């Protein structure tokens, strides 16, 4: 070592880190970060301070007083709630001094005074902070001989969550979460003092999309989730970290099972993504994986309908269908739809099979409800960038309904005053109440709305304040993507520096498109494929984990496409309206039954855990593709899922860094690079004459609908709100029917009957119908060929 070098080292040491705060914790020097709360700094220093109300994703309230420790800031040791005070230079913290311990023991005794100690029959027993901290920091005995508080136990506060008020220690975690994080202040403390309790208002249950988080953060067994109650003891659970693929936010989860049965998903705190939160749909969707209706063996169509068969014969049949199709109509008469619900590996193997072995360019991972793939080639934003941008522009579906945890992140940005939201929407969304400006547009006119808004001086001033992130997706399934695409182009032209976060919904849609499930040169997009099939031009239609009849907005087109396709091969977990029509059905391994990787809207690649044995003989999609490739004469060289992951890294633009080793090493996954895609071209939006169709139709998704995963999760299925047509209250008079009455809703294509409802978040002159709900076949009215859908609403 030379003198110069050693000087450099010393010089480096004297540079004062402005964010470093030197403190003493239990006699040891520790460098904490400026702004860290004492409790956090101590934990970082290896000194755990017991607590109940403190949660590092919520504001501190100093309620339970469990985290009292002796702190000396130069005026002598004082007991201070360590969750409320940030570290200051020179602070001396004693977490285990006699005074600290006496305080902690005292609080435990008081918390247990009214706690029922019914641990043997409590779901939380074994993973209960109250139990654990009574053991580690409690006095070991109780001197309390008075009568304990008694309440009816438990009471249902929603369809999913039960509350046992006797166990509750009033830490304010669930109530704070509901108000602060979810924005659904439907549970509250009521009464006062010793009789304080958590309750809902009569007839207004805790119907938050995020209610399950309260169960997870409850530090006692006061809140329990119906799908998990009395199903297991925590010590019998095995767990593996994974990523939720219910939507494309990519929340990290812990998948828990016992005796090879999925029992619970818990949120894992991934700083760039979900902060520990999950939506209820993601949390409880494991029920669908366990469903008795899952496909267990391959099926082939015979004269008697579907019959179970072996994998060998199914593979042979499928390979023959593909060969016959190519012989009959050429490679491009084979089309592959899907891939967005599987892993990157599934999609990559199918993309290779389609593009390279079959040789068709007609491949799509979207279903007529997405955006041109070029959106993924735009200057991509991360969720963190979006939620710290000065301005967030929403040209997107209702994120609370479609990408719930992204909604939480953006809501947080708005309520904490980091960001201002400018929203363009056809009707109010979950974020409207937090938006700085909301511009309501009539479907099809969003580009005009964008141009007019950008011209306003106060908008321009806001946009000049710093980073801008555009969240882009389809707000209305009853119009083509043209209006949104045109508006997005208008925005990106006016704001060339702005980043774009795609709000595409299906779990791995970004991954599937990125690794190749998109049209090749001269190929058709999903609507094109369906039109071609309907016109009898598709000899073989392959559905990879997709159900066009349920998911394509234009239901008639989907039906005609499946009827017109000469041969259909489906890979699916269930028999759906679409796979029912297939000639060969391969049973697919579901979430948690296969390993691999997934890609979220940001392009973040994370791992999927293989936690339980597959259902029946089902196989992961990639394996089905590899087998078929083999039978078609090419070995893809995929012996294991790791081979596929490695092949993606080797072959896919932007995925070079996404290796098994990198994923292993990264706590929060690996951000894939942005590859180049065909750029979006400006579409023309032709709005026809409305004639007598006097309501313009808006169709959008609710979190809970009739989609296959939800429908097979009993706890979630009943939460789907059902169908109706909603209009603005002032438009009711035009229709001449009473609220709740059945009305005829007609479009040029069809007429359906729906019950009439009002919603003042619907704009006048438009009608809103939730997509894919029981009793509301709104897809019958949607015309994929038209820019917008206009309807007439009449009394029966």
């Amino acid at each position, binding site marked *: 070592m030379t003198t110069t070098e050693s000087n450099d080292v010393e010089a480096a040491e004297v540079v004062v880190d402005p964010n470093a705060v030197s403190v003493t914790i239990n006699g040891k020097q520790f460098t904490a970060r400026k702004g860290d709360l004492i409790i956090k700094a101590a934990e970082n220093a290896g000194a755990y301070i017991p607590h109940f109300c403190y949660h590092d994703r919520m504001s501190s309230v100093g309620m339970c007083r469990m985290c009292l420790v002796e702190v000396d800031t130069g005026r002598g040791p004082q007991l201070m709630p360590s969750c409320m005070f940030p570290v200051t230079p020179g602070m001396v913290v004693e977490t285990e001094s006699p005074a600290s311990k006496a305080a902690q023991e005292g609080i435990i005794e008081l918390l247990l005074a009214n706690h029922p100690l019914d641990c043997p029959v409590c779901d939380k027993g074994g993973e209960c902070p109250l139990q654990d901290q009574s053991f580690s920091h409690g006095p070991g005995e109780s001197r309390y001989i008075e009568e304990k508080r008694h309440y009816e136990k438990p009471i249902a506060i929603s369809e999913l969550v039960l509350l046992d008020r006797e166990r509750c220690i009033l830490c304010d975690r669930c109530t704070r979460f509901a*108000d602060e994080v979810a924005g*659904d*202040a*439907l*549970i*509250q*403390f*009521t*009464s*006062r003092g010793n009789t304080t309790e958590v*309750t*809902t*208002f*009569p007839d*207004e249950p805790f119907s938050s999309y995020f209610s399950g988080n309260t169960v997870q953060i409850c530090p006692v067994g006061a809140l329990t989730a119906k799908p998990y109650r009395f199903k297991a003891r925590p010590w019998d659970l095995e767990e593996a970290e994974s990523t939720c693929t219910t939507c494309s936010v990519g929340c990290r989860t812990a998948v828990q099972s016992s005796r090879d049965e999925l029992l619970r998903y818990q949120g894992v705190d991934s700083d760039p993504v979900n902060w520990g939160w999950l939506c209820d749909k993601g949390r409880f969707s494991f029920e669908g994986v366990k469903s008795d209706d899952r496909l267990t063996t391959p099926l082939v169509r015979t004269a008697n309908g579907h019959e179970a068969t072996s994998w060998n014969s199914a593979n042979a049949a499928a390979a023959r269908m593909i060969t016959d199709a190519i012989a009959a109509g050429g490679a491009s008469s084979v089309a592959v739809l899907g891939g967005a619900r599987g892993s990157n590996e599934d999609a990559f193997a199918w993309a290779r099979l389609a593009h390279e072995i079959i040789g068709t360019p007609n491949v799509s991972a979207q279903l007529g409800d997405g955006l041109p793939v070029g959106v993924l080639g735009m200057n991509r934003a991360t969720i963190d960038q979006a939620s710290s941008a000065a301005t967030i522009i929403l040209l997107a579906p209702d994120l609370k309904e479609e990408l719930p945890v992204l909604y939480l992140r953006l809501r947080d940005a708005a309520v904490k005053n980091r960001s201002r939201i400018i929203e363009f929407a056809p009707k109010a969304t979950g974020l409207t109440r937090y938006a700085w400006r909301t511009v309501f547009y009539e479907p099809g006119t969003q580009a005009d709305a964008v141009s007019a808004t950008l011209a306003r001086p106060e908008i321009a001033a806001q946009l000049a304040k710093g980073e801008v992130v555009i969240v882009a997706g389809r707000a209305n399934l009853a119009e083509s993507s043209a209006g949104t695409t045109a508006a997005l182009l208008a925005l990106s032209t006016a704001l060339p520096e702005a980043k774009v976060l795609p709000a595409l919904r299906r779990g791995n849609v970004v991954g599937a498109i990125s690794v190749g499930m998109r049209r090749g040169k001269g190929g058709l997009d999903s609507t094109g494929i369906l039109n071609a099939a309907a016109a009898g031009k598709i000899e073989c239609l392959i559905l990879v984990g997709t159900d066009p009849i349920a998911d394509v907005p234009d239901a008639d087109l989907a039906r005609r496409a499946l009827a017109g396709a000469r041969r259909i091969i489906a890979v699916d977990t269930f028999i759906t309206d679409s796979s029912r029509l297939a000639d060969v059905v391969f049973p697919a391994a579901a979430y948690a039954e296969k390993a691999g990787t997934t890609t979220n809207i940001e392009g973040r690649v994370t791992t999927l855990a293989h936690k339980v044995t597959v259902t029946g003989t089902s196989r992961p999609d990639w394996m089905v593709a590899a087998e078929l490739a083999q039978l078609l004469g090419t070995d893809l060289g995929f012996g294991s899922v790791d081979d596929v992951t490695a092949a993606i890294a080797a072959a896919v633009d932007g995925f070079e860094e996404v290796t098994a080793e990198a994923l292993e090493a990264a706590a929060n996954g690996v951000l894939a690079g942005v590859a180049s895609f065909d750029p979006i071209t400006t579409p023309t939006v032709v709005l026809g004459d409305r004639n007598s169709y006097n309501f313009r139709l808006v169709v959008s998704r609710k979190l809970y609908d009739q989609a296959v995963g939800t429908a097979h999760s009993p706890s979630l299925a009943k939460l789907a709100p059902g169908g109706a047509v909603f209009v603005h209250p002032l438009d009711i008079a035009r229709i001449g029917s009473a609220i709740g009455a059945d009305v005829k809703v007609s479009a040029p294509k069809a007429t359906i009957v729906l019950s009439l409802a009002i919603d003042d978040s619907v704009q006048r002159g438009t009608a809103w119908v939730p997509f894919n709900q029981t009793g509301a076949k709104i897809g019958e009215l949607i015309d994929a060929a038209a820019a917008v859908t206009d309807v007439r609403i009449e009394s029966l």
Partner: protein
Amino acid sequence: MSRLTEDNVRVAHEIISHYPRSRSATIPLLHLAQQQDGYVTNDAIRHIGELVGATSAEVLGTATFYEMFKFEPVGKYLVNICRTMSCALMGGEELMHHAEHRLGIKAGSTTPDGMFTLEHAECQAACTEAPTLQVNYRYRFRVTPETFDALIDDLAAGRLDSEIPAHGTVARIRQHIPAERGVGAVPPEDATNAPSWMTVAEAPK
């Protein structure tokens, strides 16, 4: 039933206009609802939530924190007898025993005719005049069994109707800020300049 009446909605809007944020009107509006119905109904809670921009649960949480709000009907006259130290030293407990006998009910309940609800109260801020009670928040001082009986007789006979309104009404005079005189409440985020009479140089450091 029992949302605020049209007249009371007007009063509610006037009250809300006094505050920079409408949530601040929650307690005054709960009083208004109680004045209307004698107690706070669930419908009123829901209505107040709509008026101030809170969920029903939030309004319920606030309402149940405060003792004056009742969630089921109480007597026309709510008789609160103080039992905190000064009154207890001067015979408050004995007064309560007498009241229970006189009215034939235990503290915390209502006479069958719906006239009187008897409650223990904590310190009424009239400690030098112990023992004290309030009837619908109107004071009586240095109460003896005899003056208590006379009070009950007077109330039952309607002789105090002009002084003591039925339960629910607290103050009978409201503040009205005349439009031409009032400054007007502004949300705090819109009032970030120094007030007119304070130059920045004068502002306290």
